[in-house]
C-alpha cells in the first residue's frame, strides 16, 4: 500500500458525556471529517483499560484515540485525570513495543466542540497517513519466525 492510497484504520474511545456527544454534534451538524475513525463509546475516558488500546493495535489499528472531557469537566469528577495518567504510562510501553508514540493520542473534546472533534479526526488521520501503516501483525509474525 503506498502513501497515496493508504487509508489508516483508527479506533477512538470516546467518553459518553463529552467527546461522544461532541462527535454526535459534529454528525448532526453535518460536518465532514476523515471517515477513518471507528468510535467505541465508553462511559468515561477513565474506563479505557490499557488492554483496549493494545488490543486495538493488535487487531490492526494504525492509530488509537482516547478522548474525554476537559480537565475539571469530568462527569465522574476525575476519570479524565486517570485516563491521562494511564495514557502517559502506556505511551512509554507502546514505544517499547515499537509503536510510534504519534499513533496513540489523548484529546479533550467537550460536548460543544463538534468543530474540535472534526479537527482532531482530520489531523490524526493526516498524521497516521504520513507515518504509514503499522503492520504490527506482519512484524510480529517475522519476530516469531526468526
Amino acid at each position, binding site marked *: 500500500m503506498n502513501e497515496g492510497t493508504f487509508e489508516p*484504520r483508527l*479506533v477512538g474511545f470516546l467518553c459518553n*458525556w*463529552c467527546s461522544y*456527544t461532541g462527535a454526535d454534534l459534529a454528525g448532526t451538524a453535518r460536518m465532514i471529517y476523515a471517515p477513518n475513525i*471507528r468510535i*467505541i463509546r*465508553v*462511559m*468515561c475516558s*477513565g*474506563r*479505557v*483499560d*490499557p*488492554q*483496549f488500546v493494545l*488490543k*486495538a493495535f493488535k*487487531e*490492526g*489499528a494504525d492509530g488509537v484515540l482516547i478522548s474525554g472531557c476537559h480537565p*475539571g*469537566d469530568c*462527569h*465522574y*469528577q*476525575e*476519570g479524565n485525570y*486517570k485516563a491521562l495518567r*494511564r495514557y502517559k504510562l502506556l505511551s512509554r510501553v507502546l514505544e517499547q513495543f515499537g509503536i510510534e508514540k504519534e499513533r496513540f493520542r489523548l484529546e479533550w473534546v*467537550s*460536548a*460543544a*466542540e463538534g*468543530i474540535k472533534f472534526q479537527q482532531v479526526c482530520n489531523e490524526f488521520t493526516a498524521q497516521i497517513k504520513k507515518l504509514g501503516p503499522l503492520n504490527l501483525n506482519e512484524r510480529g509474525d517475522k519476530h516469531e519466525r526468526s
Partner: protein
Amino acid sequence: MVHLTIDGKKIAVEEGQTILQAAAKNDVKIPTLCYHPVVEPYAACRVCLVEVELRGKTDLVTSCNTKVQDGMDVRTKSERTLQARRLNVEMLLARAPAAEPIQHLAKELGIEGTRFEVKDPNEKCILCGLCVRACEQIVGASAISFVDRGTDRKVTPPFGEPSEACIGCTACAYFCPTGAITCEDKYGRKVIHSELHLGPTTAIRVPIRQAVPMVPFIDTEACIHFKTGECKVCAKVCDREAVNHDMQDQVIEVDVGTIVLASGFKSFDASRIPAYGYGRYPNVITALEFERLVNASSPTGGKIKLANGDEPKAVGIIHCVGSRDEHYNEYCSRVCCMYSLKFAHLIHEKTKADVYDFYIDMRCFGKGYEEFYHRLLKEGTKFIRGRASDITDMGLTEKEEGKLIIRVEDTLLGTVRRIPVDMVVLATGLEPGLDQNQIAKMFNISCSQDTFFLERHPKLAPVSTFSDGIFLAGACQAPRDIPDTVAQAGGAAAEALALADKGIFALEPVTAVINEELCSGCQVCVGLCPFTAITYDKGKGISIINDALCKGCGTCVAACPSAASQQQHFRDAQIFAEIEGIFLV
C-alpha cells in the same frame, strides 16, 4: 391614659406624649417651624405656643415640649394664643424676611409687615437649631453648631470652613424649615438632588416599581447609619418595626431534590463596539436605557427626551448590536427585532419623531409578530436594510449639523447612506451571564460553544442537563423571549416535579460489579473510586461495591489487575468484541 381637653374636645392619650403629639393625633393643627418628629424638641421658634389651663392656673406653653397632664384644658386658637403667636412670627419675620415659610405663616395669621428692625432682608435662618440637632442626633456627625452669642449668633461649621466631620449627607438642608441651608459641592453642582440622578436617591428604597419582592432595601453605601452609627430614622418612623439595620448577609443551605437553573443572561456591553460611540455620545443609548426612559415611572415620567431635555425629531434604532457578528457573538439574540419594533411603535406613539430602523433581517418569528411588523410599516417607520457601520457627530452639511449621523450601506438600494438623527437606540443582544462558567462547574453541566448551558438533547431532553435532577429554564440556556422562557420554564418545573414527586430515582444500569471469585483483595479500586462506592470487606478479604453510590464510570474496572471488577454493559469482553468487530469489515 391621660385625659385632657383640646379646643373643647375631650380626649385621652398615652402618658408621656407632648401636647403637639396629642393634638396631631386628634387632627388639631398647631403650626411649627423648629419641630421635627424624629428630632428632640427644643422649643426655639415659639410658633407652637398654646394656652393651657391646669388647676385654675392659665399659662402659655410651647406645645412641642410640654407633656400632657390629667385635667389640662388646651386652647390652640384662643385670642391670647393667637396674639402671642402673631408677635413671635412678626419677630421671626424681622429676623428672616426672605424665608418663604415664615411669609406664608405671617399671611395665615394676618400679619402684614413687621414693626421690628430688619437687619438683613436676604436672611432666611431663624436660628432654631433644628439643623444642629439633626446633625448631632440623627447623623451623629456634629459638623455644624451655633457660634457667637446674642445678635452675632449663627450656625456654621467650625471656623466657617468645610468641616472634616461633615459626611455630605445634606440632612441639615433637608431638615431646615426655612430653606436657609443649601448644599453645594466644590464643583458647584447641587448635591443629592434627584435631577442629577436617573434613579431614586434615598438610602432606603424600593429598587424599581416593578421590583419583586416589593420591599425596600438599605443602600449601605449611602445610608448615614453605616457611616456614623446614628440616624435610624427609617426604623423610628416604621410602625411595624420592620426596619433592621443589624441584618447581615447570610448563607442559607437548603436540602433539595431537584434544581431548576434559571440564572439568566447579561446584556451585551455596547461600549465594546467603539464605532457606535456608546459612552461618548450621550444620545446613543442602549435598549435597556431606552426601556427605562419610556417606563411610566422613569425620571422623565415616560417621556422620550434627549440628554438636553428636548424631544427628539429623529430616532435611529440599530439592530443586532453584538449579535450576528463574528467579532462579538455569531448567534442571533432572538429578542432584539421584536423589542426594536416595540420601541419604534412607542416612539411613534409618544413623539412626532421619524424612526429609522436599521436591520439585517427582520426576524419576526412568533405568534402575531409578523403582523406587528406590518403594523409598523403602516405606521411609517423607515426600515433600512443594512448593518450600520458607525455613528458620528461630524456633520458634512447644514442638515447634519448638531445631529448624530448613522452611516449605513442600504443593501436594498445598493448605496451608502448617511442618516442624521437626534437619538440612537442600540438593540443590544443577549450574552451568557458573567458567572456562567462557574455555575456550570458547580452543577457539573456543560456549556455549548457560545457558553450558554447545554441541554442533554436538543429535541428529546431540551430542559434536562447531563447532571440528573438539574434542569434549565430561560435565557441561561439560549437567548429567548418571555413567552418562550415561560413555556420552557414550565417544562423544566414539570420535569423537576415529576422527579421529586416520584420519590425514587432510577439508577443507570451501568454500575460496576465485583466477581468475588476473582477478587484478590488488592484494594487498588478502593482508592480510585471518586464516589467512595467501594469498600474493603475484611471478613471476606475482597472489595465490595455499593450499588446506590456507584455511578458507573468504570475507572475501577480499567484498573483491576485480575479483571474481577466489571462494568455492566461495558464488560471487557464486550469491548474486546467491539474492537474485533471493527476490523472484521
